[in-house]
């Protein structure tokens, strides 16, 4: 009962579609990963001989190195600022009634529906208009706008699930508001805050479309540097970078799970 007999036609179709979906999810990174080890300067598949030379090239190519550090700077600033702003607004939206509440919420979430190139272009025009150089300030600001909805949602959902009676219990035990916040509210919201920040960081580090408009030669982030590279060369160093990207992101998430105890904290029995 409850299982589809696999020899029937619907059963076969179901099995086939599952295999197809998993296949299409795994195939692109798999192909790219294999291509990254090609010895030749071609993105051909399958490679005839294996080599690590394109990894070496990717790691030593000056534009990629600069792009990586630029991207890291932008990501750390953008996701941290977005976290501070997003958490503050999520808190206000959850706890207080104020004028234009819905409107403000809609505006904060609007970058979900505005295309990234529109935001990038807009910032480009504004920066030019006020005579601002295409420095990190513009890039970081654009990224904050782009990742804000995700941080806001993440923290807001955590707040919605938060049992306010825990704060009342702390108050009744003699904790002034600031101590309640530090000893009860923030520790219990930490998983939401951390996952919001992580999501923002990953999105920001991978962001290309808006970055293309707002970065300059000095501030270009890794995706932009990769784009510029592809316009001139078609060798497997792109594939090598992809592999490094995937490995780094996976490592970051694994680290978060293990050492921040995300999974553990998330499994805490939610009162209610």
């Amino acid at each position: 009962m409850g299982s589809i007999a696999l020899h029937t036609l619907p059963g076969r179709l179901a099995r086939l579609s599952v295999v197809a979906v998993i296949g299409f999810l795994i195939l692109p990174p798999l192909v790219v990963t294999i291509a990254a080890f090609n010895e030749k300067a071609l993105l051909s598949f399958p490679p005839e001989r294996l080599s690590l030379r394109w990894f070496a090239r990717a790691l030593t190519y000056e534009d990629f190195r600069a792009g990586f550090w630029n991207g890291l700077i932008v990501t750390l600033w953008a996701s941290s600022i977005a976290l501070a702003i997003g958490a503050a607004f999520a808190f206000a939206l959850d706890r207080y009634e104020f004028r234009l509440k819905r409107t403000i919420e809609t505006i904060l979430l609007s970058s979900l529906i505005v295309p990234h190139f529109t935001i990038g272009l807009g910032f480009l025009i504004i920066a030019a208009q006020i005579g601002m150089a295409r420095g990190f300030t513009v890039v970081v600001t654009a990224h904050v706008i782009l990742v804000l909805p995700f941080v806001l949602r993440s923290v807001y959902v955590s707040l919605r699930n938060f049992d306010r009676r825990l704060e009342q219990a702390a108050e009744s035990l003699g904790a002034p508001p600031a101590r309640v916040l530090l000893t009860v509210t923030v520790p219990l919201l930490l998983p939401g805050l951390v996952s919001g920040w992580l999501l923002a960081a990953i999105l920001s580090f991978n962001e290309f479309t808006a970055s293309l408009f707002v970065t300059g030669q000095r501030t270009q982030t890794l995706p932009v540097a990769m784009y510029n590279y592809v316009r001139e060369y078609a060798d497997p160093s792109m594939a090598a970078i992809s592999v490094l990207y995937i490995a780094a992101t996976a490592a970051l998430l694994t680290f978060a799970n293990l050492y921040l105890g995300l999974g553990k904290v998330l499994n805490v029995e939610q009162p209610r």
Partner: protein
Amino acid sequence: MSSSRASSSAVSLNAVSKSFGAIAALKATSLDIRPGELMTLLGPSGCGKTTLLNIVAGFLSADAGDVAIEGQRVNDVPTFQRQIGMMFQSYALFPHMTVEANVGYGLKMRGMPRADIHRRVQDALVLVKLQGLEARKPSQLSGGQQQRIALARALVIEPKVLLLDEPFSALDKSLRGSMQIELKDIQRKLGIATIFVTHDQSEALSLSDRLAVMSEGVIRQVGTPHEVYADPADRFVASFIGDVNVIPGVIESLDDGRATIRVGNGHVGASRTHLADAAPGTPVDVFVRPEQITLAAPREEIPLTGKVHASVFQGGHTDVLVDVGVEGMSTVLVRLAGPAHVARWAKGAPVGVVFAVDTVLAFPKSG
């Protein structure tokens, strides 16, 4: 405003009211809780009992009126300075802290040295009979254990008043009874003034020193469980506390303090307390407890006759439901002590219902 009346009370509420929008959750309510007393706020949901508790705790501020704790007006004192201990319906234990940290939280907030906190926490855990689990997290404890921790956490700070918000509603029925007895023992031992909120009338009757019966934002009656049960102030209290049969009758005659009421083919006496303005011929409702009536073989001159609908053996007593052919009521519940009644009053047997007391409660017919 520290009148002598207020200062002799653990908690004093003076004409406290609270509205939420257009809804008056609490209408000008006054109540004194004496030192060491367990006062229950009893009523159906929406009666204002939780609002009142939250006002005492400081989670809500009253629209009007004064709240005093040990004679000191606390209207403008925030919760964290009120020195209350509160136990929540969900227990509200901090899920990210160990049992030890949960119980010690209030002492830590008071800046007590670590060693003292440890000692006091141990004492509190002895008091609630739950030691050896200090390193556990709340999610690793059973419901009953969580409740003991919540109680220890509220008591360890030696609050001026203990507030209990439906603390037993999340427990199994079997566990509830023993926890109630333990709570009452601890409360009496510590002599701590306690406000206990519940909608469960049997819980209220068994635990309270006094109880306040509430409905629609008003305290209907304050008294000991016995007073409220035996001498309810109005129809609401009479029907909310304990099981009661409401039987229609008519006033036949009145003399000084007493009314004689015709019920069916019989009569019963009632106090005139609630019939002050009534005249002979006025229709009334007779409120009679299941243990105030008994069964007899049907004959004339008996108040009500009918057929047994069901006999339910309850261990120490038997509940017999009788179908009576009276307009406006379907069955009468009769509670007979002893086990031998089930066989005698079998389903379908013709039976008469007679009053076992000579004075019952009667109220003018409502509406």
